C-alpha cells in the first residue's frame, strides 16, 4: 500500500526488524544459558541440599560455600589435576598429535588419507562412555595392554592404579584427537602452495617451512582450536568417572568429578554449585587468555 513514497516510517520499522529475527535466539540464550547461570550463582549462596534438614528449607548462607571451598584442600588438588589433565590431554596431546597427523597426511594420496582419517575419527565418534569402557579394558589389570607386555615377558602393571592420570590423559587423547586433526587439515589445505614452493626455491629446509611459514599462517586456527579443545576438556566427566572414579585417592579427581561428588554423593547441591562456578571462572579465564593471545 505505502510503496516507495512512505519510506521514512518503513525505515523506522526496519530499524527494529533485527530484533524480530534475533528474538528467538535471544530468548533461547536467556532461558537456557543466562538463566541457569544466574540460578547457579544464586544457589551457590544457599544451603541447597538434595536430602536432609536443609532440603526442606532453603537458607541463605552468605559466603559459607566459598569459604569452605578455599579451606578445602581437595579443591586445590582438583584444580591442579584439572590443569594437568587439560594441558596433558588437550593443549599438548590432542593439539600436537592432531596437527602432526594432519601435517603428515597432507599431499598424500586420497585412499591413504581416507583410511587414516577414518581410523582416527573412530575414536571421536565413539560415545564417551563406550570409549571409557574400551580404554578401561585396555589398561585394566587383566587388560589388553598387560596381555601384550606379558607376551614379551614383562610382568603386568596395574596401570589404572599406578599411573591413573596418565591413563585418563591417554584416553582423552585417543578420544579427542580427531577433532583437532580435522580442524588442522582444513587449515593446512588453505596454506597457499605458492608460498611454500617459493620457500623451497629459496632453499628453506622442511623444518624452516613448518616453523616460519605454515605455523604462522595457521596461527589463528591454532588459537581457536586450542580454545575449543580446552573448553571441551574442562567439562570431561564421564570418561574419568568410568575409568578411575576420580581415584585412587584423589589422583584423578578433577573439578567436574569433585563437583559431582559434593552434589550427588554428599548431597550438598549448594556447595556443588559453588564449585561449578569455579569451573566456569576457570573456563572464562582461559578463554580470555586465548582471545588475547589471538589478538597479538
Amino acid at each position, binding site marked *: 500500500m505505502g510503496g516507495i513514497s512512505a519510506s521514512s516510517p518503513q525505515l523506522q520499522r526496519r530499524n527494529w526488524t533485527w530484533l524480530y529475527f534475533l528474538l528467538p535466539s535471544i530468548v533461547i540464550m536467556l532461558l537456557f544459558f543466562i538463566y541457569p547461570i544466574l540460578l547457579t550463582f544464586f544457589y551457590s549462596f544457599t544451603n541447597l541440599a538434595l536430602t536432609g534438614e536443609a532440603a526442606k528449607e532453603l537458607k541463605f548462607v552468605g559466603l559459607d560455600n566459598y569459604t569452605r571451598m578455599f579451606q578445602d584442600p581437595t579443591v586445590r588438588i582438583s584444580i591442579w589435576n584439572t590443569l594437568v589433565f587439560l594441558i596433558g590431554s588437550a593443549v599438548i596431546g590432542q593439539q600436537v598429535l592432531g596437527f602432526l597427523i594432519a601435517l603428515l597426511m597432507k599431499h598424500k594420496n586420497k585412499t591413504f588419507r581416507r583410511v587414516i582419517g577414518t581410523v582416527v575419527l573412530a575414536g571421536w565418534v565413539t560415545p564417551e562412555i563406550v570409549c571409557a569402557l574400551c580404554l578401561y579394558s585396555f589398561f585394566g589389570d587383566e587388560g589388553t595392554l598387560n596381555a601384550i607386555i606379558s607376551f614379551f615377558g614383562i610382568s603386568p602393571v596395574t596401570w589404572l*592404579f599406578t599411573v591413573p592420570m596418565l591413563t585418563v590423559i591417554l584416553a582423552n587423547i585417543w578420544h579427542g584427537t580427531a577433532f583437532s586433526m580435522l580442524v588442522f587439515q582444513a587449515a593446512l589445505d588453505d596454506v597457499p602452495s605458492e608460498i611454500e614452493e617459493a620457500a623451497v626455491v629459496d632453499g628453506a629446509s622442511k623444518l624452516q617451512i613448518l616453523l616460519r611459514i605454515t605455523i604462522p599462517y595457521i596461527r589463528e586456527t591454532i588459537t581457536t582450536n586450542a580454545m575449543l579443545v580446552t573448553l571441551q576438556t574442562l567439562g570431561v566427566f564421564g570418561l574419568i568417572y568410568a575409568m578411575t572414579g576420580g581415584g585412587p585417592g584423589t589422583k584423578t579427581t578433577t573439578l567436574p568429578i569433585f563437583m559431582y561428588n559434593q552434589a550427588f554423593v554428599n548431597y550438598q547441591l549448594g556447595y556443588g554449585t559453588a564449585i561449578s562456578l569455579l569451573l566456569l571462572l576457570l573456563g572464562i579465564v582461559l578463554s580470555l587468555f586465548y582471545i588475547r593471545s589471538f589478538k597479538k
Partner: protein
Amino acid sequence: MLAKRKWALMSSALLLAVTMGCSNSGSSSAPQAQGNDPAPSQGGGDKAATEKKTITITYRDDGTGEKGTLYKWIKEVSASYPNKNVEIKPTPIQASEGDYFAKIALALKSKDTAPDIVTEDTFMLNSDASAGFLEPLDDRLKGWEDWSNGSFIEAMKKGVTASDGKVYGVPYNTDSRGLWYNKEIFKKAGLPEDWKPKSWDEVLAAARTIKEKAGSDVVPIWMNLGKATGEATSMQTYEMLLYGTGERLYDDASKKWIVKSQGINDALAFIETIAKEKLGPPLSKVLNGQAGNTATREYLPKGKLAISLDGSWITGNYLEGGASPWPEYKDVLGFAPMPTSKGQAPGTITLAGGWALSIPSNAKNKDEAWDFIKFALNKENTQKLVMSSGNITVRADVAKDPEYTQMPFNEIATEYLKNAEFRPAQDKYPEVSTQIQTMVESVATGTSAADAANKYAQDVTRIVGQEHAIEK
C-alpha cells in the same frame, strides 16, 4: 461476525466450566470414596473397576531386571493381593547404590515423580525424613496389630525411627556383619575350623599364620578399604572396628560428632597393621568399586581368600540362581563374630543396617499404599523375601520359623543382632561417611594413621561445624 464470536466465547466458557468441574470432582471425591466406602456397593462396582488405582513401588535394580529378587517378590505378592481394584506396578531405578539415594531424593521432591511406596535404606531414612520427603507412619502403625504385638523385633524399630522420634518406614530386612572364613584354608594352615577369635590380636595372628602357611596366592584377610566401595568401607570395615573399641561416631548425650578419640586411633592402627604387613588384598583390587564383588564372588569361592570381614547377606550370591552359585559354601565357609578390640564386654560387635518400605509425602495413593505394605510385610510375605535374598528377617515370628532357621548361617547371623549397633540417625552422616572412606583409603595406601586421623578431625569439624564436634 459478532454472533460468531459470541458463540465461540460461550462455547469456550462452557468447555472451561466442564473441565474445571471434572477436575474438581476428581480431586475431591476420590479420597471421600475410599475413606467412607472401602467396599464399593454393587452400583459403584463398575465405577471402581474403571478407576482402578495404580500403586507404584520404587526400588533399586542392580542390573538384574526381571530376574531380581525384589521384582520377582513384588510380582508374586501382588498376584496374591486380595484387593483387585489396585494394580501394583514396580518402577525400579537402575543405579549403583550411591546413585540410587540421589535419584530417589530427586524423585521424592515432586508430586509428579514420587512413587506410592519407596524402599529406603535405613541410614538414609533419617535424611529423607528430615527433608520432609516421607510420611510419618505412627498413626497408621497404631492400627496395625503386627506392629504392636511383638511380631517385629523391637530393636529393629530403632532403625526406622528418625531423629524427631517418629517412625518413617516398615523394615523388611536387616543384616549383621562378621568374619567369614574358609575352613579348608584354615585347616591347611593348622588353624581351628571352628574359629572364634577373642580379640583383634587373635584375628591378626590368624592372618599372619595364613600368610606364612597357605601360599602366596591366598589373601589372608579382606576388608573394603577404598572410597570406591563407599558405604561398605565405612560400615563393614571402619565402624565394625571403631564400635569394637567401645567408641562411637556420634555422642548421643552431647549431640556432637566425635572427631578425635583413642578408638579412632586404634581402629586405624588395625588397618595400618594389615597394610604394613601386607595381610590384605592387593590395592588395585580393593580400591575399586567392584572390590566387594571380587571378594565374595571370585576370591572366596575360589579358595583365594581366607578371612573376609563382610555382611551376612553375601551367601545370597551362592544360592542357586545367585550371581555366583556355590553349593559347597555351607560346608566350606564359617561365620565368626567380630570380637571387640581387646575382648572387652560385650565381647563381640556387629553393625546392623537394612531396608524399609516408606510412603513418600508426595505419594498420590497413601491409603492404598499403606494397605499394601501391611499385606506385603506380613509374616508369610516377609519370609519369602528374606529367604530368597539371603537377608536376615526383622520379624520375630519369621526368625522362629524352621524353614527360615534351617537356611545355613541364618540362625547365627540373627543371633549376632543381639549386640547390634546402628549408624547415627543424623543428617550429616552421609557426608561424614565420605570422610571416613577417605581416611581409611589413605591409611591403606600408606599415609600414617596419625596424619589421616588429623585430617579426618579437620574435615569433619568443617562439615558439622565447630559447635557440633567433640574431642575425646
